[in-house]
């Protein structure tokens, strides 16, 4: 195996210099487009209302106003977006005849600057007939609930009952069955940079160019082209080199790409729209709030025989693709790290008068593991078994990888027990338990929680079809979907300098740094010798449906494409050198940035030397060798197959593992939670840059902490958002960050070129579980178990008060 001096080192990030000195190129810094005008969006103040008409005359008469586009224009010019379910939900870039959530766009005003546009937006009259609203997914399914979409006739956008193995038998044969109901909150990511779009229509070429901080997946490109009824090769998406964070949220920007595209086409001017923070909180995207009913069937010794999941996922006023991924994205890893074979999933996707949902860091895995890991603790409690022991008895053993889960997942590698043991050792679990006992004896409420999670990366596009009925998928006209691919190009310039070209739309993950490390190792260079260009342009980059940076893809699939491209180029250089040296290629090897004989002395060619000769004197190339020194590799996973007739699907391609231990203390008087210890151990295969990985874990953990303790897009019963500013929507800050003890176990993936897996979502999916378990453990003496997040002081105070009232009344 080739030596890897750079992979595995905390190489300082190439990106940081420009980002920390304010020299990044974000969408708002985008080079000027001539005659650029600015858009403000008129949004619905009502959660549910009929749109009876628009009055734009006053706005049009105002200073600097170029024009107004309303829902009527959208209805005339656009087709609705494709949705991931068969229910006839018609979702357009704006409301058409009805608004279904507060903040839904109803019109766009374009003016000379944003101030004037906002002034004029206030002057747009919209005639509404207000309708009753519903925001609670359970109430939305009651018979007398207001119906959002008359054509659908129900607020149920989709429902699937998935059965794996024989859950009924597992429950019938169980010694013990534990049941619980959980609620998971609606929260987003609040990236520091909000959405931004610039659209320019060229009527001569018939090309619509849309610059934006869209992060993929680029399946949305054909979707937008269809909505605008443009041929795909007349719609150009460009993404600048820097995006200020996304965490999944910016995949849902695409309706605005269509909206600003239409506005530019209709008004004949280039249009810029930068979402402001109020718009972002009100109407960008978030994860779903969920009500879940869980059942676990087990033997007396703690062996889990089967589980039942039932949930209502609240997707808001419409179902916006890739939803209902909220229900099905984790299909392959529904069982988590446990080896039980029998599972029933009853998934309902419900529409209510809340803002729309989509991928949010961990895409539904935070929900999944919060429920599962709470259930494991409840089962342990019921059986009087230690929470560590009950998990250990159910783990997938290390010798069974690659492991096929009953739901179709293919866990590529791992050693779950070793990772759990590492977490326990770092946390000094036994000592922690002793300290807890001492603290309890003095009246303190200290608790210890555990959480385990299989961390899926690189979604397989095929999982989306799990939402569809197998009978529907069996129809001949149905076209199955599958796959996960990424491309990279490495080229050598005439004086021997190396450039790597990607189209991966990073949002701060440090792709340039990672790629420079990989290419340096492959070509025997130093990272600083490699220039990495990462700007997406659908007209010039090699891309496909699944392109983009989401689903923790890059560490797994992007790195594979880069390494393969470098290897292709290396092979070409070797062949060329063999020709120049007139020796068989087998006698040569690539090391230290050049081609050398494997044994003995003799002439050697540096990359610079070979590049010079190849570019300046093509006559020196061997017969049949294509001129030019560049190689493009497209890497695709062969394990990404479409969903089968039994609803089994390998919904991701690589699967890491997380084991966490947390200790907390609850102050009963103020109902506040203090984190005393937090240990997280990850197995993400080969680690390319430990510093970047650590940053991802910190970010993921804080994101999870947000959902567990602070963040909620809360609505009143009329559908008004209660947390529409950063005064009310509380995001954990550096002051709230606990110290995190991070360790790694490495089980290289057999499926990726470098053995690496994704890790971008990481602890966002475990922290809600681990802290809920720790707080429940702390409050066990009062008989309190956490079933609902976020654990706000008010909610905790209510639980404590009720528990004390129970105690004092016999």
């Amino acid at each position, binding site marked *: 195996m080739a030596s890897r001096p750079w992979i595995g080192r905390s190489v300082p990030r190439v990106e940081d210099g420009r980002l920390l000195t304010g020299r990044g190129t974000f969408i708002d810094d985008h080079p000027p487009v001539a005659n650029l005008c600015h858009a403000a969006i008129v949004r619905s103040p009502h959660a549910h209302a009929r749109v009876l008409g628009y009055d734009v005359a006053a706005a049009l008469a105002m200073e600097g106003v170029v024009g107004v586009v309303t829902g009527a224009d959208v209805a005339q010019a656009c087709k609705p977006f494709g949705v991931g379910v068969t229910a006839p939900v018609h979702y357009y870039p704006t409301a058409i005849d009805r608004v279904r959530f507060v903040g839904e766009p109803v019109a766009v005003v374009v003016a000379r600057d*944003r*101030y004037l546009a*906002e*002034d004029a937006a*206030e002057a747009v009259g919209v005639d509404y007939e207000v309708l009753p609203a519903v925001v609670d997914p359970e109430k939305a399914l009651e018979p007398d609930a207001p119906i959002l979409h008359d054509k659908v006739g129900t607020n149920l956008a989709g429902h699937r009952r998935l059965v794996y193995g024989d859950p009924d038998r597992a429950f019938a044969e169980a010694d013990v069955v534990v049941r619980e109901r959980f609620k998971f909150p609606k929260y987003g990511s609040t990236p520091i940079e909000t959405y931004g779009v610039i659209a320019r229509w060229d009527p001569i070429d018939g090309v619509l160019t849309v610059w934006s901080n869209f992060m993929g997946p680029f399946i949305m490109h054909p979707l937008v082209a269809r909505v605008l009824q443009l041929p795909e090769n007349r719609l150009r998406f460009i993404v600048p080199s820097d995006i200020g964070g996304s965490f999944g949220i910016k995949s849902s920007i695409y309706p605005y790409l269509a909206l600003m595209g239409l506005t530019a086409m209709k008004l004949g001017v280039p249009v810029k729209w930068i979402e*402001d*923070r*109020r718009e972002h909180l009100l109407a960008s995207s978030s994860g779903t709030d969920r009500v879940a009913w869980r059942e676990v069937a087990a033997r007396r010794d703690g062996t889990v025989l089967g589980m039942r999941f039932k949930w209502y996922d609240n997707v808001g006023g419409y179902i916006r693709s890739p939803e209902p991924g909220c229900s099905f994205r984790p299909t392959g890893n529904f069982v988590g790290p446990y080896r039980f074979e029998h599972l029933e999933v009853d998934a309902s996707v419900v529409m209510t008068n809340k803002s729309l949902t989509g991928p949010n860091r961990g895409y539904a895995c935070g929900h999944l593991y919060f429920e599962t890991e709470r259930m494991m603790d409840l089962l342990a409690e019921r059986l009087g078994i230690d929470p560590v022991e009950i998990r250990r008895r159910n783990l997938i053993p290390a010798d069974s990888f690659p492991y096929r889960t009953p739901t179709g997942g293919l866990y590529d590698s791992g050693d779950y027990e070793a990772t759990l043991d590492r977490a326990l050792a770092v946390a000094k679990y036994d000592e922690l338990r002793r300290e807890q006992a001492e603290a309890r004896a003095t009246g303190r409420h200290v608790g210890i929680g555990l959480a385990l999670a299989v961390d899926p990366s690189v979604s397989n596009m095929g999982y989306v079809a799990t939402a569809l009925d197998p009978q529907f998928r069996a129809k001949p006209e149905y076209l199955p979907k599958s796959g996960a691919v990424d491309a990279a190009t490495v080229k050598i310039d005439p004086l021997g300098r190396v450039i790597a070209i990607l189209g991966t739309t990073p949002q701060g993950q440090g792709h340039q740094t990672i790629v420079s490390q990989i290419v340096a190792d492959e070509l025997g260079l130093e990272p600083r010798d490699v220039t990495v260009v990462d700007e997406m342009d659908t007209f010039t980059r090699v891309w496909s449906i699944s392109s983009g940076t989401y689903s923790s893809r890059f560490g797994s699939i992007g790195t594979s494409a880069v390494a393969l491209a470098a290897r292709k180029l290396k092979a070409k250089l070797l062949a060329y050198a063999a020709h120049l040296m007139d020796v068989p290629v087998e006698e040569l090897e690539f090391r230290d940035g050049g081609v050398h004989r494997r044994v003995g002395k003799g002439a050697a060619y540096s990359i610079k030397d070979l590049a010079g000769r190849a570019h300046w004197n093509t006559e020196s190339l061997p017969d049949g060798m294509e001129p030019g020194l560049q190689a493009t590799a497209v890497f695709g996973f062969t394990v990404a197959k479409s969903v089968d007739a039994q609803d089994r699907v390998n919904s991701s391609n690589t699967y890491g593992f997380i084991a966490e231990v947390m200790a907390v203390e609850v102050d009963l*008087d*103020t*109902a*506040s939670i203090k984190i005393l210890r937090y240990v997280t151990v990850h197995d993400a295969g080969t680690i390319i840059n430990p510093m970047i990985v650590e940053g991802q874990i910190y970010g993921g953990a804080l994101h999870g902490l947000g959902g567990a303790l*602070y963040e909620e897009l*809360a609505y009143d019963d009329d559908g008004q958002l*209660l*947390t529409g*500013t950063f*005064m*009310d929507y*509380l995001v*954990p*800050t550096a*002051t*709230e960050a606990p110290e995190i003890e991070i360790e790694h176990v490495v089980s290289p993936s057999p499926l990726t070129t470098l053995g690496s897996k994704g890790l971008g979502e990481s602890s966002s999916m475990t922290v809600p579980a681990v802290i809920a378990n720790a707080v429940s453990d702390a409050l066990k003496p009062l008989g309190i178990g956490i079933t609902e997040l976020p654990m*706000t*002081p*008010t909610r905790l*105070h*209510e639980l404590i*008060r009720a528990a004390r009232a129970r105690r004092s009344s016999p």
Partner: protein
Amino acid sequence: MKPPRFDYHAPASVDEAVALLVRYGGDAKVLAGGQSLMPMLNFRLARPAALVDVNRIPVLAYVREDDGTVAFGAMTRQRTIEFSPVVARRLPLLHEATRWVGHLPIRSRGTIGGSIAHADPSAEYPAVLTALEGEVVVQGPRGRRTLRPAELFETYLTTSLAPDELLVEVRLPAMAAGAGYAFEEFARRHGDFAIVGIAAMVVRDGARCSVARLASAGAGPVPVRLRAAEQILERDGLGETAIEAAAARAAELVSPDSDVHASADYRRHLTRVLTARAVKRAVDRSR
């Protein structure tokens, strides 16, 4: 989040500022540190015809100790107060409360006059003003007048200042040497407005409490002077039982509302918990 159009004035004197307020007849807003006003403008929640920016009136920024009173120019920054030796010596309660005000960038811009005139009941300074029986000086076209907290704070974000009046000075009586003090606060995150805050001061005379001062932040539409709770301490001393009784009484004196951050019941409960903690800490510090 762009404000609608407004006129902007940056007067160089208080008289000039008052003249501008008169000219706009109630349709102008005074810009001090801007930590609350600027977001309100950007959200279009405040839509004044004009801003009167008082940042360029140098005589409005000072800390002066005079005859047992510490006087603050309205434009004295919270950051200045945080590091003022006079405040540390004579008003340690204000010093401690300042540490709870927002974050460093907020304190660097925010002013004592702005915080009090904004009258957010969750803010720290209105509670300290209330506890210490301070007063504010306001100047209008009819001259100057002095207002006590009970006369100043009317309800959420509302004071008795006339639209053409400018708050120019805040006066706090210096604390007695040896007085114990504490500012206890609970917020969901560090730097947020208080869910509940309690300002406490006690002066001890042997085993007795000669003076007790208590005020709440965040537990109702205005900061509440907790006089009946103070009286329990002044009558029964500073033992554990008296402190618990005073804390329980404090919880009865406030009339908190529910909002997205906390229920009224939880705020009332916190008032009791934090009053007890504040008094205990104040007692520990008293000499």
